[in-house]
């Protein structure tokens, strides 16, 4: 199937990727190749087959409702030291407009 460059741009917007014109061309080409390749799955009859989300069958793990994390000052510093921009332990970002 063909994917238009508008569709590519829509997907890029969903993924929050700004793409150059070259990249749009590259991705379009890639989509075309891959979707054609992936199309072979449609040749398979999967009627009645259950979708498989996990390689193992287990019920999910559960934990007790207990506070277990330590919030020492050094922990907070390690977190904040990684942040590109902060103010008083807030993360600072360019203005969010609602």
């Amino acid at each position, binding site marked *: 199937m063909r994917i238009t460059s508008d569709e590519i741009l829509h997907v890029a917007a969903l993924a929050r990727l700004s793409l150059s014109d070259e990249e749009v061309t590259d991705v379009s080409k890639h989509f075309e190749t891959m979707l054609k390749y992936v199309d072979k799955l449609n040749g398979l009859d999967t009627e009645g087959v259950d979708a498989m989300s996990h390689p193992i069958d287990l019920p*999910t*793990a559960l*934990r007790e*409702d207990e506070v277990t994390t330590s*919030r020492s000052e050094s*922990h907070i510093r390690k977190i904040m030291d990684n942040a590109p921009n902060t103010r008083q332990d807030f993360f*600072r970002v360019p*203005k969010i*407009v609602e």
Partner: protein
Amino acid sequence: MQYESVIGLEVHAQLLTKSKIFCGCPTAFGAEANHHTCPVCLGLPGVLPVLNKKVVDFAVRAALATKCSITHSSRWARKNYFYPDLPKGYQISMFDLPIAEHGYVEVDGNGSIKKIGLTRIHMEEDAGKSIHDAERDSSLVDLNRTGIPLLEIVSEPDIRSAEEAGVYLRNLRSILQYLGICDGNMEEGSLRCDANVSVRRVGTESLGTRTETKNLNSFKAVEKAIRYETQRQIGVVESGERVVQETRLWDSEREITRTMRSKELAHDYRYFPDPDLMPLVVDDHWIARERESIPELPSVRRERFVRHYGLPPYDAEILTARRDVADYFEAAVVSCPDEAKLVSNWVMDVALRFIKEEKLDATLKIREWPCPPEHIGRLVSLIKNEVISGTIAKTVFSEMRKNQLSPEDIVEKNGLRQVSDRGALEAQVEAVLAENPDKVQAFLAGKEKLIGFFVGHVMRATGGKANPRMVNELALKKLETLR
């Protein structure tokens, strides 16, 4: 042309767990920014979620209390969207297999019970908070709230008016509070509500285009916004235009809803099963255990209050809206079971007003209130046994609030015992009649309401301590002799 509104509510209830839904961070309010976080709720590289069992307990409880069917094996899904207060770029929620579906909440409208259907209940994680007004060009992000467990409760579009929406929401809140799983405070955001509203001509079946209104942080806001949105949409339709399907914000200052300026470049949540979490399996044993923990729910309790205590439905409604108030009433009424209505008056009139004045509505604080319920019961007994009058009782009550003494002690200490000495009261009655010959004449001429005047005077003269029933009786008797 007659229109009706078609309303569905989406409620988010913060659950009263100690720790977050997928990590061991505390849920307590009021910490410094980002101090209640850890690598997991901050969405650091490499972290994985582990489900808090209590959240499931609470969800099962809510599902049972609203007559939902519980999904044996439900599934976690990722809801993908970008926002600075959503650390992972997706919210862990439920989508195609929620934990519960097909329940209902009863609402009482004009004496008849109506069931508002619940489409689904599911669990999810809360997002953080962004502060937009602290700096001119920046926003600040605090992720303490990120990962606090939420229950999303989605109603069917069964609601037909703003009032009905209010009743539904109050009843739902009551249920959640009774279950002890949410404190239900809309102002603080522990209970949030979005309203889906559309309008259609009365008599038509098909649904109109709906809008979703957000930012409704009080019961009043919910009702006002629905009224506003209904009128707005009718206006749009009447003028021959089409209602646009969109998300709107309630502006509580101007009391209008307005279009949200689009904050998203594009919108498509791309839900898919979360590969980090296995299916949630809730077996019959687990359900049975939670069923046992469910207390008598408000609607059942309301009926019992009417049946058992002989209370008017109005009283029962007010008293049972909150579990703590209902518990308080029942603890109070033990000491004077025959005077349930009087106890109810006291609890409703005085206690609830006090709660409101002290802003205790926010949390379930009545249990901590200095005046134990037994004292209210005994205060009513004192009135009933004519030890004190209703007027004096108010004085006694305000003392009880202050110093935790029993009503008996207060009466004794302050000499507030009612005067029921016939002779003394007779003398007082005679004195009052003698002082007001013109009023006596008027009474005898048929203005019988003046009895209140005479009784009032005697009460005043005795500092409120006279037995009003006896004064009334003596005054009538005396007046009869003057005919």
